[in-house]
Each structure stands twice: as structure tokens, then as C-alpha cells.
């Protein structure tokens, strides 16, 4: 794997003020590096600050201390160089699948014909061919998140940020979407930061897993390299060994 530094997060801390003056420290002193074309999984239970960390990478939150750089440039706000897939799909109900996927291109004034080609490419990639003119409410949860993924990819971002993208899906669909995510990543190599609370998902997808502490404020506990061939099997013996190591090191409920 290439070892070019892609994203650098330096000593980032964040505290939220709740209900007037109650301070809630969410992240403390998080430092991490993400390399080009790496599939990095940030694993931690609910309420450990991992989504906030991703929002800081997205530029939707600003850190109180520390800084984040992407390709050497500091992140100061949201921008199309980072593609984000949200947990709650966050599709535009009033736009068709095609218009949802093409929105980023439209906002950047890409001519219509080119937009159509790029949009179609990513609609095909996520397997939604034939659903271009459907509205989100006509789709199942898994299909909605495919639209979310296609929308993020279509903007050709430098890095993909996925925030518990399959959290709302049933186990069956979730497993299938993991497979699809791995396939898409093989097909369109990008740097990916994938936030999840699901250890099997993390093991199945990640090149590297960053494990976070199970309480606030969120800190990095440790990290694991997963040097296993793809496509992976959930029942692979080395994977299961690593799973045991990680679960021994966490308070994750199994």
C-alpha cells in the first residue's frame, strides 16, 4: 500500500456546551494519520465521540484545540473534496435518485451532459440502474444508503467519510452492504474513513482499525493492522483471532 500521508489529525480536542453552561468533553487529544487509499475504520461504542471526530474532518465542527490537515492543507470548513455518507441517509426527498446523485456536480456547475454521464456511472456502480427516476421514499433502507454512497462518490472527493452508514439497516442487508462497500472500494480506490460500532464490520472492511475508548471524552485506545487478503470471510480463522484480541481489549457488548 502507498504510504503517502493523506489526512493528519493533530491533538484534536472538542468540548460541547450543553444546556447553558454544562461542559461535555467529547474528544480529547486525538492524533492520527490516514494514508492514501487506506481503508481506515474507527471503531468504538455509541457515545465515544467518533461521529464528532468525523464531523471535524468534514469541517462541520471546528476543534477547540489541535488541527486537521488534508493533503497538507488545513481543514477550515466543509467542501466537496470530502465525500460524506451519513447515518440517517440524509437524502433530499424532493429529488429523484438521479438528482440526488448529481447534486454535488450541479452545485459545481458541471455541464448537464457530463453530469449525466458521471451520475449514471455511480448509479450503476452502486447497483441502482433502473431506479434513476425513483424518489427516496420508494426505496428500501439499503437502497437509500446506496444513493448516499453514490452521491458522495459522484463528487469525486479525495477522501470518503462514512459515519455509521449501515447503522439503520437490518443485519442481513447490513452484511450485504459491507460486501458491496468492499467491492466499490476495490473498484474505485479512495481513502476511506469508516466509523462504526460494529466489530465484524470493522474487521471485514478495514486495512486498519482505530479503537476508541468506550466513554467520553473520546480518546484513541489502540490500533490494529489487518493484513488479510480480500475478499474476506467473516469466519476466517485469523480474522476471528484478531476479533478475540480486540474484544478482550474493549468494553464492547458482544
Amino acid at each position, binding site marked *: 500500500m502507498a504510504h503517502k500521508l493523506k489526512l493528519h489529525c493533530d491533538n484534536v480536542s472538542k468540548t460541547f456546551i450543553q444546556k447553558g453552561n454544562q461542559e461535555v468533553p467529547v474528544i480529547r487529544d486525538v492524533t492520527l494519520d490516514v494514508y492514501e487509499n487506506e481503508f481506515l475504520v474507527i471503531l468504538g461504542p455509541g457515545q465515544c465521540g467518533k461521529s464528532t471526530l468525523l464531523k471535524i474532518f*468534514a*469541517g462541520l465542527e471546528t476543534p477547540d484545540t489541535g488541527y486537521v490537515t488534508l493533503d497538507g492543507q488545513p481543514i477550515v470548513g466543509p467542501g466537496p473534496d470530502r465525500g460524506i455518507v451519513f447515518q440517517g441517509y*440524509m437524502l433530499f426527498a424532493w429529488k429523484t435518485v438521479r438528482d440526488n446523485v448529481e*447534486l454535488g456536480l450541479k*452545485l459545481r456547475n458541471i455541464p448537464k451532459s457530463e453530469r449525466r454521464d458521471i451520475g449514471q456511472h455511480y448509479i450503476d456502480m452502486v*447497483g441502482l*440502474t*433502473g431506479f434513476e427516476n425513483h*424518489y427516496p421514499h420508494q426505496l428500501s433502507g439499503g437502497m437509500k444508503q446506496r444513493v448516499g454512497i453514490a452521491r458522495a462518490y459522484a463528487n469525486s472527493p479525495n477522501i470518503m467519510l462514512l459515519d455509521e452508514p449501515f447503522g439503520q439497516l437490518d443485519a442481513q442487508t447490513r452484511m450485504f452492504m459491507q460486501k458491496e462497500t468492499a467491492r466499490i472500494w476495490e473498484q474505485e480506490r479512495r481513502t476511506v474513513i469508516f466509523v462504526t460500532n460494529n466489530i465484524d464490520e470493522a474487521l471485514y472492511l478495514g486495512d486498519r482499525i482505530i479503537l476508541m475508548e468506550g466513554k467520553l471524552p473520546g480518546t484513541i485506545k489502540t490500533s490494529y493492522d489487518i493484513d488479510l487478503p480480500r475478499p474476506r470471510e467473516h469466519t476466517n480463522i485469523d480474522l476471528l483471532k484478531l476479533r478475540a484480541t480486540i474484544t478482550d481489549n474493549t468494553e464492547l457488548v458482544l
Partner: protein
Amino acid sequence: MSGSSIANETIDHSKNREPFSFYKFITNKYFLNVVSIVAFLLIWDYVAKEKIFRDSLARPLEVVDQLYMLTYMKFAGTNLAGHIWASTQRVLIGFIAASIVAVPLGLFMALNKYVNAVVKPLFDLFKPMPPIAWVSIAILWFGIGEMSKVFIIIIGTFVPCLLNAYNGVRLVDPDLYDVVRVLGGNRRDEIFHVCFPASFPAVFAGLQISLSSAWTCVLAAELMNSRDGMGFLIKRGMDTHQPTLVLGGMVLIAAAAYGTSLLVTLLEKKLCPWKRTIENL
């Protein structure tokens, strides 16, 4: 591969045809709808025939007869269509004039806190006042002509139009703005790609409420003072003790209100094809 995956997630819509069953038939939704309406008409007819309200309740067919007669006979200078149109015209003028101003103002209030700070207190001051309370002052200001009637309707429709447009924007999921910004959009894009389309259903809900309020207002105005319109038919029926005319006017105004509401529904379907419709509401 991905094609088959989609198939796994879609729902099978096929229905099995079942053999005819008497129980299924009498519990059929549409059958029960018809039973309910027919029973209502029969009870009405019975009550009228037995003179329970003495001669003040007409039988359903007498009402139909009366309305049919009015279609070819002039009543107070115009036939039935003329009276229907007189009221409908007032409603449409007032409703359109109010919504053209109120909807943009409501959207603007939600988007700009300074506009909101100026308009909101005035609005809160007038909001609790029932529109009918304006009838007398409207007649003092504008006389008994068209203008005073249209004015009442504007007063009655303005509030729900504005309130719903305002809330429609304020209730938009703020995370959706983040999506636009992440995709590279600016404030203008947030407004045009999220704010406005997301508030459409609320705006249309407001238009529906306004429309029903407009019919209430036109009726009140016509009962007070008018020479044509459906409210006038009702009033004249009351003054001359003709229950067929009163009931006929009531039926007509309900039908006209339903018709205009249907038009707004159709317009909404056209403009918001993405909206999931709720059945039987």
C-alpha cells in the same frame, strides 16, 4: 450481481385473487362507505317526511328539485351558475391575493431574523382575532360591494398561509443544510435546494386551511349583506322560510369548497410528485 441484490430488497407486490365471500363483501370498505351515505339520506328523508322539525326540514329530493329549478330560472337576477360563480370568484380573488403575499412573506420571515423581528409581533397581535370580527369594519371602510367581501377573505386566509410557510421552513432538518455545504453549495444553494422544496408540503397544507377559511369568510360576508352568491341563497331562504333553498345553498357551498380544495390538491400533486400521500385523510 448488484441487480439480484436489489431484487432481494424490493417488496413483492403481487396479490392473490380470492374467491367471492359474502363476509368479505359486506366488510368491504367501499360497500360500507355506500351503506353509510345511503343510511344518512334515508334517515334525513324520514325525519323530513314525519315533520319532526315541522316544515323547516326539506326532503333530499325536494332540495335537488329546488336546485334543478334554479338552473333554468332566474333568482334575484341570475341563475344557479351565476350565484355559484359569484361566491367562487370572491373566494378565488381573496385567496390568491392573500397567498401571493403571505407565502413569500412567511418564507422570508423564517429565513431572515430581522424581517421576522419586524413582522412577527404584528402578526401575533392580529392572529387570535377571528376573521369574521372584521366584517363590520370592512363594511364601514369599503361599503357593501365586492371589496369588503374580498377584504374579509384576505384577512381570513392570510394567517394560515403565512404561518404554515413560516413553520415549513423552520422545521426543515438542519442536517440537510450540512449535506448541501459538504457537496460544495453555498447559502443560496441551501435555500433553493433544501429550504423551499422542503417547505412545500407545509405551504400546501397552509393553502388548504386557508381555502376552507376563505369559504367560511365568504359565507359570513354574504350572509351579512349581498345580492348574489350562495350565502345570499341561504339568507334569502331563511328570510322567506324556504328550507329547500337554505339546504340547497348549504349543499352547493360544500360542493364548491370541495371542488376548489381538489384543485389545490391537484396542483400539489403536480408540484410535489415526491410527496408520499397518506390515504384516507
